[in-house]
């Protein structure tokens, strides 16, 4: 104690000041690329060496809301996919996560390894292999097929996150509830769900983000028929209209940032959900 209070207050506040500077600099670095999008999205005839666009224009935004715009269709497709993939991956993954988090059994390591492996093996190898078969089964070029393929990169994240939560979970509460006469559903709803809720939020966030940003799997299985935001953006970016590309990027990112804002408290802080990745 004595050693701390004997320190000169100036050096302490200097340290604090430097810390603030470092944090501010870090945030600045992380946000600059995002700022570039705002510049571009409102520019017209914006050539080197102008730093700020001389002509401010809403053309890009007009063409996004124009009647012929593909953006609404792409947003709808992306949303259907992301919501569908998120819901189904959590439902599919929840029992497995519970088994992995609560019990030890023979072959557990192998199962864990198999579930993790899609994060290691690149998606293109899988999608290229599925391509022809999906066409034959009528799963190519529609939302169902694309959604199924999105499950492959999503499942490991969902199961890992949830099993991390289950490993800190005490199932005895369920038995107590059951012994007090609660049914299976009631027990799940009133006991299990509240306990694992932070984990479900984080798992859903990952599932949503992975599906929402997926380009190459959608491209290979969607066969150009399923226009999602990444597919549309990639095609627009190959054109030369930076303003449109930038405006579209902002539209694409906005929902994710909103969702992150709503769920941020589960990501950091005391929540152990993300600790699931420590188990790889």
């Amino acid at each position, binding site marked *: 104690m004595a050693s701390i209070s004997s320190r000169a207050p100036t050096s302490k506040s200097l340290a604090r000041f430097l810390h603030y500077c470092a944090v501010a600099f870090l945030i600045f670095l992380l946000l600059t690329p995002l700022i570039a999008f705002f510049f571009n999205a409102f520019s*017209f*005839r914006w*050539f*080197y060496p102008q730093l700020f666009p001389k*002509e401010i*224009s809403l*053309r890009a935004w007009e*063409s996004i809301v*124009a*009647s*012929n715009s*593909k953006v609404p269709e792409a947003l709808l497709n992306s949303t259907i996919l992301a919501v569908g993939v998120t819901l189904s991956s959590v439902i599919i993954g929840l029992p497995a996560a519970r088994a992995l988090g609560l019990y030890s059994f023979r072959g557990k390591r192998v199962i864990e390894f198999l579930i993790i492996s899609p994060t290691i093996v690149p998606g293109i190898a899988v999608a290229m292999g599925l*391509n*022809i078969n999906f*066409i*034959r089964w009528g799963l*190519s*070029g529609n939302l169902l097929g694309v959604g199924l393929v999105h499950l492959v990169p999503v499942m490991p994240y969902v199961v890992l996150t949830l099993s991390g939560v289950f490993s800190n979970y005490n199932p005895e509460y369920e038995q107590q509830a059951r012994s007090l006469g609660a049914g299976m559903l009631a027990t799940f709803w009133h006991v299990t769900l509240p306990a694992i809720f932070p984990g479900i939020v984080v798992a859903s966030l990952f599932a949503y983000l992975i599906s929402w940003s997926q380009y190459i799997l959608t491209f290979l299985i969607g*066969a*150009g*028929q399923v*226009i999602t935001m990444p597919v*549309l953006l*990639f*095609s*627009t970016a*190959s*054109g*030369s*209209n*930076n*303003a*449109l590309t930038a405006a579209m990027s902002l539209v694409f990112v906005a929902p994710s940032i909103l969702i992150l804002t709503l769920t941020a408290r589960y990501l950091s802080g005391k929540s152990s959900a993300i600790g699931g990745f420590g188990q790889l």
Partner: protein
Amino acid sequence: MFRYRIMATFLLCLVLMPLAAVAADDMEGPPGFDNWEAVLEEARGQTLNWHMWGGSDAWNSFVDIVYGGELMENYGVTLNRVPLADTVDAVNQVLSEEEAGVAHDEGSVDLIWINGENFKTLKQAGLLYGPWTLNVPNSKYLDWETGGFLLDFGEPIDYSEQPWAAGAFQWIYDTARMDAEDLPRSYAELGEWIGANPGRFTYVAPGPGAFQGTRIVKQLMYELCGGPEPFAAFDQSVWDECSPKAWEVLNAWEANLWREGATYPATANELNELFANGEVDFSLTLTGTGAARGIASGQLPETAKAYLFDANMISGFSYLAIPINSANKAAALVMGNLLVRPDMQAAQLDTNSLGTGATPVVDFSTLSEEEAQAFADIAAAIVGAADPAEFAALVPNTASEYHTLTEQNWERCVLRDEC
């Protein structure tokens, strides 16, 4: 006089040949249809899946608004434009569906904006619907005999491919930066210019999806090896003799190119951006109206202008094709017919409105005075196009084998320097 001007400008039909215009009612229907009425009947209510390169928002808006509107209003057809990163994706889709055994009226691609090797791929695989282009009413506006579009990259189109826009290779420069008399007018002069202005020139890397670059190299071969004639049909010995000369010239340029030729722009759009930002002094276009569309859309400075070398500039056409497994052939035929209707062709040209600046393929001698006047008025208002007289330098494209060989070998012999 105006008629001379349009024709000189766009070099569409050199010879005016009155066509025996066939009336729609006694015209035979396209394969699978008794007559045109049957096509219209079946098209009503269909959704047309038109797969086209999506990198130009000028094209996207034009297709959606002008064609989409017309299809819906007058034909009851819903247009679904499917944007592609590269036309080859649509070809692949058709091939994959065929491979997977999809029935011939259940395919997902109804219409493709196509040409060159992609057309040849489908044709050789027997996956094209047709012949149909003579069986749509508006085909009477095209000069099939001398219009020059019966060969696409040397490949007979067999009336399975509908021409709808003419293109011509042009360079783009900035009149604020350079005077017209200082411009290089041949590849030899360009080489000197590059030597005198290090770092100020580059070209699009030839390759799939970047055919503009391939065209630059083929034009160089024309200049080095006696013009277009030797390349009209494929001859391996011509390639073996000529290509090393071209690689030599291109490799000699490298030291003075933008980024010392370590890398090249991957697309014409990328080159355009470099040009607009003053990183290089030349861009290029294949659109007949030169810099007009780029100026209107803000992608090019207002002082940009197109020009041509004195010789060996390649011209060509954009086509439409219908895959054999298209589920909505009637709707596709309606669209094919619509594309060459004179008022649509004029709308396409008008860069001051929604138009893309694509130059028309219709034969002006088949038009009424009023229809022709519409073209003349639009042409007069266009800025940034090349001087009409310069279009005398236009020559036909090579056989597609040279195209493929150039794409395959440029990377190895110029970029990787392994030859």
